[in-house]
């Protein structure tokens, strides 16, 4: 509960022991010391312990509700005794009803589905300011909150409410002590002044300031540098909209505005009434005991109850009856008048009654439209009431929603009294409170109704989550010689074959066409044998539309299959924004860009690979070149995966040797990177290890004897199996380096991979300079995985280091056997040219998403070192010497 600054002045005086006597400082220090020990002891209490004390003090508070209300009215001369009794009962009974089953000790909330647990940590010593307007109810409420949360409180009642505040503290303390609370848990300054407050607000052992008071008190609390719960002043606008239940609304407003003579700061201040119901509303007010002021009476009120100097309410009027106020200012009203109502024509300094008035004087405004009414309410809200409370009476949900949007108030009360509604728990399900947080608009830290959770440090115990993993592959994979025959089983009215010129020439297309049912209309779309360009893709999409394709057969290497994947995407979802879909992401499940799920057309994609490397026939990746903007667009989503993959070795029998070597090493790199990836799983490991074993044995055979059908067939399957692994576990830093280098120097992807591979294995097998933060990683195990691969290949070695060394050696021997260049220098790239390129290469490699699944997080300087290792590689002389040694 807050009051206007004219009622309660507490200046933010800096702490200066010079302003206080030594005795006073000793007294204040002792209070804090006692509270500190009490809070420490309290920390050992169980939930059962505190709940027992809470119930006891609530019953005590209820028992003394009337006694304390009487004391408050007698001492402060504010408010209505009967209403203060209700306040004291709300502060105890309603507060208890809310907190009784709440856990506030140990584990307070559990979220098993999120592996999260919340635990309570008490705050310690709280220094609490108590306002003059609610001097006993606020104490009762705060005592309950403090016991429930195991905190100790030093209370500082308003100087003009010191006796009743102290009595409330005494009653609650004795009851708490009797039921086991630690000694010193509550104390109350027997008298206090600005210096005391400032000293305590800055005291080392005071953990929190809970300032329920006027703006100065709140400002002092926040200025102390301590954590503070300061709650601000209000100026409640009320919109009485034409659809409202008028009779109920008027009674509610009267109840609220006259409750405790208007001392609750959430009470109604200016009622904005729709023109259509204005006269009827005022008549109803008058019928129920309100005095409607004429213009001169309204002027009189403006001059008297509002201070013309500062524009704030006059203290003499606060908490007084309407008849007393009328008598003081010489206004003639009927006996028993409950409320003085003054029409105003605007809001602002020239309309004095548009400010907060904590007494039974209400301003009313006649609004010609909803728009005008809302604007006037916003004006009132901004004239000292930001973040506090607002009220609307309406049956129009749209108007209520709009009111909620434009008004800045922590509590927007609908069709009920503002003052009692804001307290929570009586007219609505708001959290019961006697402290209204007003958010930043009111200079506060919260808009909440302050309650137990604001008296706790809430700790969150976050257990490591087991991320959901996946293994997603095409529905159907057909493999071995003549697997293409399976195309026959897929019905289609219109099939478009995407392929490239070489395949058209060598008769592969005919092999596919023979397997397409004769009733199917077939169109062949030949695209260049290069990484697909956006223009080429869009031409393909036009062809699909023209032929109303229901099936796409991609026959080719990675470029053709990638092109077909993107054509299908744009054909089925024309609005798909490729640029947005290519946006970088860290975690597939949390990516910003979402692939379309709604499709205007559907076409089956059958991918028939004609190289044994990329595995594009089963992967969710596609790379596109945007020549106009000179960049690559990499797309990754499982919706891109072909529906059917055909791995038929008849299409790779005529692969040239160098292509066999390049694509074969690409396959091996996929498998090796998937095996050590942070996203590796038992499902991907099985495929990766199988592919490694197959490639190691059969790649050199396929290279050396291109007509070896068995070697060709196994390598073709190995490429697909490796792709099944990396489609789910992704690749690593080797690919990031190879992408950057290959693009810059126009080196085939597999060949670029080969140049990096031995260096990357050595790099990943070493203790990382920086570990990759990844929930998937269970300790660092890349070197163990490499050792397991060495074991699988029978490479020997006793220690992990030896095994990793043997693996690197075996790979180097394989590369030599495939007659692949062993250094970038061997490609004829000068050291000078390479040196110039390295900064760009490093930048591009670091931007490449491939390394995100790498077990070791690459640092920029490490990427540069890897590039240089690949540049120097092993010289031809070294390779020859090694070969001689082996032969000898």
């Amino acid at each position, binding site marked *: 509960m807050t009051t206007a600054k004219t009622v309660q002045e507490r200046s933010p005086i800096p702490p200066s022991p010079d302003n206080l006597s030594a005795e006073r400082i000793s007294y204040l220090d002792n209070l804090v010391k006692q509270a500190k020990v009490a*809070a420490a002891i309290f920390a*050992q209490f169980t939930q059962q312990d505190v709940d027992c004390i809470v119930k006891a003090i609530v019953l005590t508070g209820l028992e003394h509700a009337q006694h304390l209300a009487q004391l408050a009215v007698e001492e402060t001369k504010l408010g209505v005794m009967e209403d203060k009794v209700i306040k004291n009962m709300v502060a105890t009974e309603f507060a208890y009803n809310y907190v009784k089953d709440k856990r506030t000790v140990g584990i307070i909330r559990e979220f098993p589905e999120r592996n999260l647990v919340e635990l309570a940590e008490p705050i310690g010593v709280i220094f609490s300011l108590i306002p003059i307007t609610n001097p006993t109810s606020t104490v009762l409420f705060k005592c309950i909150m403090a016991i429930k949360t195991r905190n100790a409180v030093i209370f500082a009642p308003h100087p003009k409410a010191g006796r009743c505040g102290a009595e409330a503290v005494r009653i609650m303390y004795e009851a708490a002590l009797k039921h086991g609370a630690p000694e010193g848990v509550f104390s109350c300054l027997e008298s206090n002044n600005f210096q005391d407050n400032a000293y305590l607000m800055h005291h080392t052992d005071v953990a929190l300031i809970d300032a329920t008071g006027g703006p100065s008190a709140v400002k002092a609390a926040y200025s102390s540098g301590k954590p503070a719960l300061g709650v601000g002043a209000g100026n409640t606008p009320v919109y009485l909209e034409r659809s409202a239940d008028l009779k109920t609304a008027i009674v509610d407003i009267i109840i609220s505005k006259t409750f405790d003579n208007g001392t609750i700061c959430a009470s109604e201040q200016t009622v904005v009434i729709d023109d259509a119901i204005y006269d009827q509303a005022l008549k109803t007010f008058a019928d129920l005991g309100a005095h409607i002021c004429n213009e001169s009476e309204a002027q009189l009120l403006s001059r008297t109850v509002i201070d013309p100097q500062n524009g704030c309410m006059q203290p003499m009027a606060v908490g007084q009856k309407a008849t007393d106020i009328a008598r003081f200012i010489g206004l003639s009203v009927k006996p028993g008048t409950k409320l003085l109502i003054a029409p105003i024509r605007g809001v602002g300094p020239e309309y004095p009654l548009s400010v907060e008035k904590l007494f039974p004087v209400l301003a009313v405004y006649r609004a010609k439209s909803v728009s005008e009414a809302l604007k006037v309410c916003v004006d009132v809200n901004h004239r000292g009431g930001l973040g506090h409370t607002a009220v609307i009476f309406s049956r129009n949900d749209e108007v209520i929603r709009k009111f909620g949007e434009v008004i800045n108030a922590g509590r927007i009360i609908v069709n009920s009294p503002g003052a009692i509604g804001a307290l929570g728990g009586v007219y609505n399900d708001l959290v019961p409170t006697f402290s209204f947080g007003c958010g930043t608009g009111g200079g506060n830290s919260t808009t909440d109704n302050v309650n137990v959770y604001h008296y706790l440090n809430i700790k969150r115990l976050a257990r490591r989550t087991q991320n959901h993993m996946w293994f997603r592959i095409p529905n159907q994979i057909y493999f071995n010689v003549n697997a293409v025959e399976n195309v026959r089983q897929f019905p289609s009215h219109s099939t478009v074959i995407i392929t490239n010129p070489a395949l058209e020439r060598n008769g592969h297309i005919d092999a596919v066409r023979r397997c397409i049912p004769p009733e199917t209309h077939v169109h062949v779309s030949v695209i260049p044998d290069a990484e697909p360009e956006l223009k080429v893709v869009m031409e393909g999409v036009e062809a699909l539309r023209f032929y109303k394709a229901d099936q796409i057969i991609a026959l080719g290497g990675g470029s053709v299959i990638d092109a077909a994947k993107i054509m299908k995407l744009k054909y089925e979802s024309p609005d798909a924004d490729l640029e947005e879909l290519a946006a970088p992401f860290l975690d597939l499940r949390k990516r910003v860009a979402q692939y379309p799920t709604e499709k205007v057309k559907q076409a089956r994609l059958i991918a028939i690979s004609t190289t044994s490397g990329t595995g594009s026939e089963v992967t969710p990746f596609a790379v596109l070149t945007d020549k106009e903007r000179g960049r690559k667009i990499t797309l990754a989503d499982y919706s891109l995966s072909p529906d059917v993959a055909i791995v038929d070795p008849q299409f790779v029998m005529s692969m040239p040797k160098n292509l066999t070597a390049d694509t074969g090493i690409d396959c091996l790199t996929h498998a090796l990177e998937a095996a050590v990836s942070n996203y590796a799983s038992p499902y991907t490991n099985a495929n990766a290890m199988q592919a490694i074993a197959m490639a190691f044995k059969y790649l050199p055979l396929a290279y050396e004897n291109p007509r070896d059908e068995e070697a060709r067939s196994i390598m073709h399957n190995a490429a697909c199996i490796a792709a099944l692994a990396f489609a789910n576990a992704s690749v690593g830093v080797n690919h990031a380096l190879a992408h950057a280098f290959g693009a810059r120097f126009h080196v085939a992807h597999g060949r670029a991979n080969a140049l990096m591979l031995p260096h990357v294995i050595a790099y990943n097998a070493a203790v990382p300079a920086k570990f990759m933060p990844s929930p998937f990683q269970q300790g660092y195990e890349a070197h163990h995985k490499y050792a397991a691969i060495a074991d699988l290949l029978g490479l020997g070695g006793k220690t992990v280091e030896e095994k990793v060394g043997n693996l690197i050696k075996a790979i180097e021997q394989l590369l030599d056997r495939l007659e692949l260049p062993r250094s970038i220098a061997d490609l004829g790239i000068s050291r000078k040219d390479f040196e110039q390129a390295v900064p760009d290469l490093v930048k591009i490699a670091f931007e490449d998403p491939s390394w995100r699944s790498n077990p070791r997080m690459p640092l920029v300087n490490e990427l540069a070192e890897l590039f240089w290792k690949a540049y120097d590689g092993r010289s031809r002389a070294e390779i020859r010497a090694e070969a001689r040694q082996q032969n000898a």
Partner: protein
Amino acid sequence: MGEVSMLLKIAEQQAAADLQAAEEKLNEAGELAIDFSQVRRLDAKGVQALVELARKADEKAVKLVLHGVDVDVYKVLKLVKIDSRLSFAA
């Protein structure tokens, strides 16, 4: 200052009284070892008695070593900020 090390057992139900009684031992020992293993909860009187004992031990340059302090009790000592004036052993 003597070289004698003594071990006093503190009972939870009478921690304050036991700690007050321990003050007498400060004259006899260079290091006073206190067995806290039976204490699971400390009350305000117990804390005050320990604060007082620590103060007197400081005066007499006697080292107070608390053995077997339960973590909840240890936290109380941290919250009242007397842990720095004590030594702890397992």
